[in-house]
């Protein structure tokens, strides 16, 4: 019965931003053929005795947007947080297998976690600006990591980061006022600017727009679209339209396993696996 469903009945929710976008999307090669930024090999993960990830193997291509989708509790956020080792903060965790960043193991014993988290930035579901001024929110990371010398260089970096996060024009006249006075969408873009300021290669986004209204969401999505030219982006989302709109590749997680990964257009229109199809057509999850 499922086989009778034609791909065309599952409309791909991919409003192209430019006429070229559609062509670009269909011309994408399979993820494995591209330069990889992050690669997981048989990666399993446990919270205490509770297994959250089961032998995940997947390749995240560099300078593309890869979406992780799946129902709640499927392990997509756990996987995301395994890449920059944010899960290290939780007691009682363990893992098997490995994740590499440009071929270098994230979990090797002498890995400098601080260095790792500098190259792998993160944006959270709930925007979490520091209770400081807008300027200080962006400047704090580079300051602590000693990335710039002098006030002028810092000013420039702050401006560049805010511009890249498409926030500069809205805040340039009130850089010294509290970041907590910004709207939810602005706060989230500030958090993106903050992540960009320490020059990461990979940006992890954990449902970055789930708490935002449609207008703010659109701004974040446009921003992701811009940023992928320079950064590798992984985005966890519950919103399948969003995955279809912003991502080049999509990985579908279910019960701790990777069911399928492929080009977003292909995965949404012609999934190989029945479970994927059932999920994206809204029959469960």
């Amino acid at each position, binding site marked *: 019965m499922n086989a009778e469903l034609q791909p065309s009945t599952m409309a791909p929710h991919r409003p192209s931003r430019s006429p070229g976008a559609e062509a670009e999307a269909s011309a994408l090669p399979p993820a494995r053929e591209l330069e990889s930024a992050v690669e997981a090999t048989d990666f399993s993960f446990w919270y205490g005795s509770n297994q959250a990830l089961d032998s995940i193997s997947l390749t995240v291509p560099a300078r593309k947007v890869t979406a992780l989708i799946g129902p709640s509790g499927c392990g997509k956020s756990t996987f995301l947080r395994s890449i920059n080792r944010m899960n290290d903060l939780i007691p009682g965790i363990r893992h098997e297998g490995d994740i590499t960043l440009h071929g270098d193991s994230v979990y090797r014993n002498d890995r400098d976690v601080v260095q790792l988290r500098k190259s792998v930035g*993160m944006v*959270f579901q709930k925007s979490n600006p*520091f*209770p400081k001024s807008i300027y200080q929110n962006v400047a704090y990371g580079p300051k602590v990591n000693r990335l710039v010398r002098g006030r002028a260089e810092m000013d420039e970096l702050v401006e560049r980061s805010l511009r890249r996060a498409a926030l500069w024009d809205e805040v340039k006249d009130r850089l010294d006022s509290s970041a907590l006075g910004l709207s939810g969408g602005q706060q989230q873009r500030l958090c993106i600017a903050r992540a960009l300021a320490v020059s990461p290669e990979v940006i992890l986004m954990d449902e970055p727009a789930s708490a935002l209204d449609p207008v703010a969401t659109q701004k974040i999505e446009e921003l992701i679209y811009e940023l992928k030219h320079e950064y590798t982006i992984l985005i966890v989302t519950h919103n399948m339209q969003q995955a279809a709109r912003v991502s080049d590749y999509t990985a579908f997680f279910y019960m701790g396993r990777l069911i399928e990964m492929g080009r977003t257009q292909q995965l949404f229109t012609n999934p190989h696996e029945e479970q994927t199809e059932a999920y994206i057509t809204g029959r469960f999850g």
Partner: protein
Amino acid sequence: MADSLSRRRRWTNRIMLTLTGVASVLILVPLTLILSYLMTAGSGAINIDFFTQLPAPVGEEGGGMVNALVGTLFLVLLAGALGLPIAVGAGIYLAEARKSPFANLVRFIADVMNGIPSIVTGIFVWAWIVLWMGRFSLLAGSVALAVMLIPMVTRTTEEMVRLVPRELREGGIALGFTRWRTTLGIVIPAARGGILTGILVALARISGETAPLLFTAFGNPFMEWRLNEPISALPLLIYQYAISPYDEWHRLAWAAALVLIALVLVISLLTRFLIKDPHRER
């Protein structure tokens, strides 16, 4: 059936609202009684002399309490200097270490210390410091007050640091900050208002303590500020004057009580002011 149920609910709602309302009014009764009585009984004795003169000898009119005011100030400041670094540090540690066995032990001890009657603290400090130094002193009084201050501020600091959302801490960690940098640079500033409030409330509390000072600071009718000399304090003077047989001293005790309450009130207002963290407004 459904109607009687909804009527019952409405009545329950009304009764509960009334009960809580009555409780709120009742809580104001002792406060207003104390304040109004203090105002009538104490304000008569308050004048410039009160704040500038030493106590007059028995039988003489006038005199003031400048020694007790200075004494309370010194005792509280020194107790803060001794106790606050320990208390705030321990509170931050408890919030960070959460469930470690050592943190649980420290937390338990802090709670036990919070429950120790203040007179026992006074005797303890008397046995350890006064006997060792061979004299009552400002130092001994401050240590006694610090011993009271530490568990209070430790626990409030812990609570306030814990209230900082996990997301904020993760934001720092995700930028490649070390744990101490995240705690000191992001978490503590976010909890600053709450920590300061806890500190001020505790300082207000100890500034009114009498029992720990009885065997430590002891009291002194003269101006004193040396560490190793006995020193006066407002609560000590109130106690001393209130149990005396002289009407003039009774009046001064009321005045001192009024000043003490005013001091606590000022600290409370200061707390309100400090809570308005410039980065917290929305």
